[in-house]
Structure formats: C-alpha cells, structure tokens
C-alpha cells in the first residue's frame, strides 16, 4: 500500500509540474494553453536527444532553457495579442499550436515510440516497507517538492512574486502602480513553459515518447487546475496530489472506472464549489 501511495505521489508530482505552468500562464494572460501538453512533449524529445547520447543532465538543462525561450516567444508573438479576444479564440489558437508542435516533432523525430533512459546516478531501487521502489521515482517526488516549495517562496517572499500574485488577480490595477505587466508576463510564461520542459524530461523515463504523449497528461493537468481553482498555486498542488492518488489507486482497485474517476471528481467538485478548492474565478 505504501508503494502504491508513493506511486500516486509520483504521478501527482508530475501533474503538479505541468499544472502549475498552466496556472501561471492563465493567471497573467488568462490564456487556457492547450499547447502546454505539446510543450511538455517537445521538452521531453529535446531532453531525450541529449540523454540518448549519454548527456541526461545536460538534456534536462537544455530542455528547460529551450522551453523557457519558446514560452517567451509565445508570450510576445501569441499570448500578448490574445488578451483582446474571447476565450474561444485563445482555445482555438493554442489548439492549433498543439497540432503544429506535434507535426514538427513528428517530422524531426518520427512517429516511432522511443524509450527514455534513466540517468545512471538514479538507476536502481531502494527498499520501502519491504518492497523495492525505484530511486528515480523518489527523484521525481523530490523535484516536485523543490519546485512547489521554491515557487511558493518566490511568490510569498519576493517583490516579483508579489507583483505576480497581484497581476493574477487584477492586471489593470497592478500596472497602474507602475508595473509593466507585459514584462512580468514574459518571465511568468517563460517560467511556466520551462516547467513544462522540466516535467517533460523528468517524466520521460516513466513514459514512452511519442508525438501525442502530452495529450493524456494535459487532460489530467486541466482537471487539476479546475479542481484546485483557476489561478490558485496551492490549490493546484493539493489537487495534483489528489488526482495522482485517484489515478493510481483507481487503476488498482477500480480498473473499469479508473479513467472516469478524475472526471467524476471534477464534476462533483464543480457542482459543490464552482471555483474549485482555492480559486476565486469560475
């Protein structure tokens, strides 16, 4: 049981890394980024290319930096101009981006399924509650906790974090105080997509690489964002852990209903509390 709970935390951690990027981007830009799963996938492929050549850690670094750069470009070229449009337009455009990125990856790396290696440093198992547990999975838990803690500290204790929280609630009032919200968004969107790159690489050894690998986890990430509350970082953290457990325990104890459970939970929570656990927007 302890191992199953840990596996739930591992999946929850991955979901958090992806969902928190969605929260960051939605908070500042009010863009529901359907391309986020494709950025996760692209980050995974970039990391894979270097990892397959024996440079796993360099692949992690390059993927994070490359995805941050892609995010900054997206913010300047796409998200900034989407502010004036309806949400449906942003959904259509980001969905189009998803298709473009999937095509780019298919043309570059092909459609074949690829296996991502585990770094030598993290290969092997440890014994937990009498059962072997992969060290790499513990690494994912540690990375997720470090990102959650780092992000919480950044938002709570730094000047920029204060501006991000303010702009996520009311960008107009925040900018009237003399804050260039566009510049702030550049950093925040870049951070959000960098986290997509990070999660893509970190998740790589657990998944099989394919151009559509981001789609399934993106849906779970959207469920996390909705359950946690749109724009809520803490809500996303707890919702990710919850969905991680439901996903994992559901697959063991209710396999016939496992794929439905996150959706049923989301529907139930939206009926009970339309803003999610900790959100203020519907």
């Amino acid at each position, binding site marked *: 049981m302890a191992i199953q709970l840990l596996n739930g935390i591992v999946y929850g951690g991955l979901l958090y890394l992806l969902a928190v990027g969605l929260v960051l981007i939605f908070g500042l830009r009010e863009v529901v980024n359907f391309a986020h799963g494709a950025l996760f996938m692209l980050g995974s492929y970039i990391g894979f290319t270097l990892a397959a050549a024996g440079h796993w850690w360099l692949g992690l670094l390059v993927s994070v930096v490359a995805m941050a750069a892609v995010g900054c470009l997206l913010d300047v070229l796409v998200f900034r101009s989407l502010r004036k449009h309806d949400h449906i337009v942003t959904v259509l455009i980001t969905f189009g981006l998803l298709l473009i990125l999937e095509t780019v990856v298919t043309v570059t790396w092909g459609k074949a399924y690829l296996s991502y290696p585990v770094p030598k440093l993290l290969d092997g198992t440890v014994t937990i509650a009498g059962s072997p547990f992969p060290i790499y999975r513990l690494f994912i838990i540690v990375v997720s906790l470090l990102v959650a803690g780092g992000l919480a500290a950044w938002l709570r204790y730094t*000047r920029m974090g*204060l*501006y991000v*929280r*303010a702009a*996520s*609630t*009311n960008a*107009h*009032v*925040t*900018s*009237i*105080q*003399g*804050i*260039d*919200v566009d510049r702030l968004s550049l950093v925040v969107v870049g951070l959000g997509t960098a986290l997509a790159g990070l999660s893509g690489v970190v998740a790589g050894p657990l998944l099989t690489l394919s151009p559509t690998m981001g789609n399934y986890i993106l849906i779970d990430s959207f469920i996390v964002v909705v359950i946690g509350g749109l724009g809520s970082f803490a809500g996303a953290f707890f919702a990710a852990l919850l969905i991680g457990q439901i996903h994992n325990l559901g697959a063991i104890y209710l396999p016939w209903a496992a794929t439905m459970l996150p959706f049923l939970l989301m529907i139930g929570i939206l009926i009970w509390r339309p803003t999610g656990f900790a959100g*203020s927007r519907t």
Partner: protein
Amino acid sequence: MTLLSFHDVHALYGQARILNGVSFEIAAGERVALVGRNGVGKTTVVNTLCGVTRIERGHVEIRGEEVRDLRRYTAAKNGISVVLQGRGIIGNLTVEENLLLGTATRRRGPWTLESIKALFPILEERKASPGLALSGGQQQMLAIGRALMANPDLLILDEPSEGLAPVIVDELADLLVRLGDQGMGILLIEQSVGLIRRVAERFYVLSKGAVAASGSLAEIQAEDFHKHITI
C-alpha cells in the same frame, strides 16, 4: 512647474469619442478639481492618461514633455499616482501587501510603510487582513496609502468620496489639503460639492467631453458651476 497637462485631447473608447478637446494643466503643489456630471468624461481623462483610452488628436505632457506612448504604468513611473474609482484594492493580497505594491516605482521620499501606518493606524491593526475585508472608508485609506507609497509629485483621485460617510469625507478633505500644502499636486475628480469646495483651489468643469468653464470658484459663475455638477 507644470506636472501634467492635456492639450486639446480627443479620445476614443472603441469608435465612440468620449473626450472632445480637453485641455487642462496642473502644477506642483496645486489642488485642482475636475468636475462634471456622470458621463461627461471625467474618468476617461484618467483612462487616457493610463493608456486605456486611445488618443485620436491632441497630446498629453508630463513635466512639459509630450508622452506619445501612454501605457498603464507610464503615470506611476513619472511620479503620478492614481487612486482609481472603486479603489482597486487587490483582494487576494493583505493590507500590507497592497501597500507594498505602491513601492513598485522605487521612488524615494517621505512616505514609507511606517509613515503610512502612522497616518492611518487602522492599516497597521489590519495589516494581515485581506484588502477587501476592510470597510469602505478603510479601503479608501488603503488606496490612498498605496498611492502615497510611490512618493508621487501628483496624486490623482477619481471619485474618492464615493460610498464614504460624511465624517470620513471631512477627514479626506483635511488630508488632501495637508498633502497639497506639503507640495504635492492634487487632481480631484469628483462630484461631491462639499469635498471639492474644501480641497480645490482651481476647477475645470467638464461637459460633453470638453472643458466648459475653468478658474477659481470666484471666477466661475455660480450658475455654470452648479449647472454641471450634482449637488
């Protein structure tokens, strides 16, 4: 020295023209009121300064220099703080965090967290409360405190008396006069006759998106004045 001036500004909301050639100016230490009935374009003046409304013709000068690309943050970065209509308190931030937001421009001056809390002791008592948990009057103190934290040369207040009890409006008037006496320019956009009479030395009366009359209270015909504002 003229801090802010509008020169024949025509401004649009989408395709609708709201300002039809507004001209006014305010110098350091002056207390000026922009008055007029609902819908004449008072708030549009603020929105134009903040780049929300598009200028079709005319221009805005800050300290005598034309500013072509007005953005929401331009005024604050140039030493002009705006207290928005409705106060603009950020609900998910605490009282103290709302105040700290005012330091974004990093302008130095007499106003610090300590001096603001000394001016409005209730903000010290409620510093950890969410900004929106305050009463209307306390929220107005918070909005003004946040604007002062930027150590502005010019403070613009859009309908600050809205929803406030008369005793709080009196306190607000005293504060604005005091700030003006200390050398801060005050631009009051207001309909409350009581407040503008007590604070402003000079008036611009807006009607149909343009200045219909201007001058001191003695210079403006009483008939003109009362025709264009709500008593």
